[in-house]
């Protein structure tokens, strides 16, 4: 009988822990009163634009970015240009860091961030696109499907 109690006891503790954990699957944090600085575009206009120009990048989507997060403040969406490298790299570190992170592609000398032809001179926007499917710049001249998956 006692043995049974003990086993049950252990199971109980574990399941309480699991249950508790399950209930609080995500860490709960308190709301803050921090607000983002106002932009030329109203919040409603921003969410409207977000619908017109949806992000195709899962990671960026998860972060819930607004247009202005990457593009900076603007008045007319028509005047918005593709991002320059330095704009991407404010969050993504520097070119070398990106090349190191993707160095698993080095194996075949085909890491586009440190490639044979272009080294660190390709624009991010040559492949990575936010609002259209990304492309593989190398595919302009090469059969890349053998060495690379789709561009994130």
């Amino acid at each position, binding site marked *: 009988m006692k043995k049974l109690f003990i086993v049950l006891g252990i199971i109980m503790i574990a399941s309480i822990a699991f249950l508790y954990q399950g209930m609080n699957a995500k860490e709960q944090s308190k709301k803050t009163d921090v607000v983002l600085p106002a932009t030329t575009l109203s919040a409603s206009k921003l969410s409207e634009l977000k619908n017109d120009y949806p992000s195709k990048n899962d990671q960026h989507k998860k972060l819930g970015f607004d247009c202005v997060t990457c593009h900076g403040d603007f008045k007319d969406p028509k005047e918005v240009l593709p991002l320059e490298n330095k704009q991407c790299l404010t969050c993504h570190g520097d070119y070398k860091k990106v090349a190191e992170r993707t160095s698993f592609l080095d194996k*075949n000398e085909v890491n586009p961030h440190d490639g044979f032809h272009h080294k660190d*001179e390709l624009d991010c926007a040559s492949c990575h696109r936010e609002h259209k499917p990304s*492309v593989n710049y190398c595919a302009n001249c090469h059969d890349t499907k053998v060495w690379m998956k789709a561009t994130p």
Partner: protein
Amino acid sequence: MDRRTFIKTGAITATAAALSVSSIAPFVDAEENTDTEFDEVFDIIVVGSGLAGTTSAITAAEHGNKVLVVDKMNILGGTSLISGLNFSCVGSDEQKARGIKDTPELMAEDMRKVSEDYGDPELSLTVARMTTRFYHFLKDRGVVFKEFKQLGGHSVARAVWAGGGAFVIRPLHAYARENLADRLTMRKRCKVDDIVFENGRAVGLKVRENYYFDFDDPQNDDKKNKTGTVKYIGAKKGIVFASGGYCRDKKLLGAEADILEETNSDANPGARSGTMQMLMSHGAQAVNLSLFRLAYPIPTEDLMWGMLINPDGKRFVNEFGNRNTIGMTILKEKKKFDGKAPLLIYDQTGADNFHDKQRFQLSMEAKNGYEGTMYKFQTLKEVAKYFGYDPRVLQKAVDEYNAALDSGVDQEFGKDFSQMNGAALRKAPFYAMRLTPKCTYTPGGVRITKEAQMINSATGETFEGLFAAGEATGGVHGAMRLTACSVPDCGAFGLISGDNVSAMKPVKLKMKS
């Protein structure tokens, strides 16, 4: 029909070549704005950042001029950056060390041998004469030559090689950044729309900055792409057009010779004719536009080890023929089958026979350019499955080919079977790829004098303030550019244009206030 007769029929009158294209870009009178206000003013503007443009710009900057290089693409370096850049050079240290006797005349003669008498012999000689100076120009600015080669068509060994275009262009650009930063500016994504003339002299450019080449619709980029903001940039001394060839411009290639639309190209995606058409609209004479140069992902001499069949599983050409005959036959066959390229198959013995194992390996690793990938299969059935053939049809083609090999005579196409060194289609594994000739160079372009000045077709005289260099020019090579002769061309006219534009008397230009 061989290539030569083809060209002759394609462009019966060589002088009509320019006209045939100017019909696409109607002749317009030069803009005679007498007092354009410029956003920026430089001494010299160079259009294009490949080898010719870079050379010209560095030379001009070293003469003390304020130089701007503009390139429409998202990356500087043009096609040169992604080319092999073998440099055929007379009087290199490598030649001296080996005691090789060579003269510019001999090199020019070699170049003329394959020109089929097209083009201007004087330009070839100018190119050959400048090679020694260009060799030292490169070496003194950080380019290191790793190999010395004897290449096909050259009567002596004279090609030096730095390891590829990146190993030439990158050191030059780095040199410019480090030593000429105060005088030389390089600007990418800047497209030239027009030339500003003042009293008949070219004094500036209308450009668009922040131009994004349309990779999604490259064929219509010149016509439809409206990106960028317009700016007027003045050039007090002159403008050098080193804007490259038009290998990727299937519209122009197709207009010159219908069948060329079937070619592949892995030149710079921006290698199109927009700038040349603009120059022609101002009257610049263009020559030899019908000429082209075909190549394959694998060396032509290694095609012979295999069998080429069309999508119906039939052979159609002697695989041991010459580059252009095979190329033109493939293009015609491709056209017959709605653009579907023929299949090239080797067995293991054939693969072992390759002269150039490195290029074979590149093909196996899928690094040999667009549609340059070779695949390996254990059985012919797998080959058939992968390339969409009926296995029985493929087997029949293979059997017939092997039988012909055994008989020793190729009744159909006259392939010389005595040279096959055991290559047949018997020994697994098999290697196969679709084979399309690539257009790798366009010998045609704007006509220049040996002083690199552009010629006005209307007056027959040179334009004041307009120079051209590199693949943008025509008439240097004639029908077939000799291997390793594009670098000396870019170098020679890069240096000459750089010198001559520097020697121009500056004009006074107005800045926007």
